[in-house]
């Protein structure tokens, strides 16, 4: 199975690899997946007073599509408000990266990681966690 050019591009030059201070109140961290399943994503966002995501970082253990999905997610998150970020759908990622059906779970994981990072940020700041509507697993 050959990878799409966009997956290769993100895989070869992943954007926003790194770590934010998970103890900071302005940082939300999402850690999703499991080593036994062959993919784990950690996605972090830094949010300013206006609810705008000023920075996003990721690290991913997984296949090329998982790495590309999280790289793309961080790229999309930067500059968005929390509310806008919540509208990112896994199918947007599938479309952008031209993921084949067997790799759709990578995009689902990326969406989960976004929501889980947002929830971590919300809970840290005394807000209620959003219900995670989608669970594809």
């Amino acid at each position, binding site marked *: 199975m050959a*990878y799409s050019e966009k997956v290769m591009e993100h*895989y070869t030059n*992943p954007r926003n*690899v790194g*770590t934010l201070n998970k103890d900071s109140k302005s940082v939300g961290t999402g*850690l*999703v*997946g*499991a*080593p*036994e*399943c*062959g*993919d*784990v*994503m*950690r996605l972090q966002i830094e949010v300013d007073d206006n609810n705008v995501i000023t920075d996003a970082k990721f*690290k*991913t*253990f*997984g*296949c*090329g599509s*998982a*790495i590309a999905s999280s790289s793309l997610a961080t790229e999309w998150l930067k500059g968005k408000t929390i509310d806008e970020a919540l509208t990112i759908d896994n199918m947007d990622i599938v479309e952008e990266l031209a993921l084949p059906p*067997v790799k759709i*779970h990578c995009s689902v*994981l990326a969406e*989960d990681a976004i929501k889980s990072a947002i929830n971590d940020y919300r809970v840290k700041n005394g807000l209620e966690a959003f219900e995670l509507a989608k669970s*594809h*697993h």
Partner: protein
Amino acid sequence: MELPIYLDNNATTPLDPRVLEAMLPYFTTKFGNAASRNHPFGWVAEEGVDYAREQVAKLIGCTEKEIIFTSGATEADNLGIKGVFEMYHEKGNHIITATTEHKAVLDTCKHLEKLGAKITYLKVKEDGLIDLQELEAAMTPETILVTIMYGNNEIGVVQPIKEIAAIAHKHGALFFTDATQAVGKIPVNVIEDGIDLMAFSAHKMYGPKGVGALYVRRKNPRVKVTSQMDGGGHERGMRSGTLNVPGIVGLGKACELCRLEMDEEATRLSALRDKLESSLTTMEESYVNGNTAHRLPHVANISFKYVEGEGLMMAMKDLAVSSGSACTSASLEPSYVLKSLGLSDDLAHSSIRFGLGRFTTEEEVDYAIENTKKAVNHLRDLSPLWEMFKEGIDLSKIEWAEH
């Protein structure tokens, strides 16, 4: 040195040019049907097949009449196991195999289960070898067949074939072995090893795809299998179908080359393999899978913890290898062979199989070492698990959201 480098010789091997040369006339001028008994075209083709049969027999220490040509090892596995089950069903219905067998054996056994066979799937030890005491304990008066592979396709471990055969025979059962990875790579002698039936394939030993053979013992004891393909009664009635003459000629030539060059090749390849393996295992948290004393000379299976196999292969640009990671197949389960060794799923996901071959050079191995190290380091920089490991976090204590 040309890129990409092929290090997946357990999947298939390139055709040796000398084999191709031997085959070519049988596509064109010597195109006859080996079963045409009444004209020279048939005779010439038959001669080619007869000669190939001798070449094959000589490699494994049997007589020509004990070789049945098939379309490959999968067919030979099916014919050998199903054929014995049908032929000896009055004697018993119990077959013993192991969990690390190739799918061609396992799925054949599963098929027979539906037809009333009782199958025992022996577990293997951590090093991939079966426990001979467990085998002995599993034998019953109903046991008609023990089927254990010679060398494993994923990790390369070589089972104690002589001892297994002796146990099978002691209890009146036949011994079948899928020797696809072993024949042509290490000395395999059906008499010395006590093998009653054996499957193997040309394309794993620098021959063409689409041809293989089943060895069926004719003396002490005389073994019979019922045919699984009905038709013109070729191959002494055990496998009908017009003979694939060029393929068979290629298998014969491949066997001859292996017989003549095996010793030297095995020495060279195991030295290169050891170099690859010892260099790569100097990296932190990398582990060799399978027994390292009893194994094929050209295989190394290594897990690089905290990186995922498919992602790793993508980074190992210009290297053709394979992985026990789930992501390489349509299923999400990692390699059942590695799991049979007791490897955790995450280590199974992190494994890479390097398969060296006749045309692998030292320069290529050196390149592979550097390229793999770079790829592992790159992916560990991207891996949250590696970061957590480095921070001293116990990953087994984390509640992962299983999906």
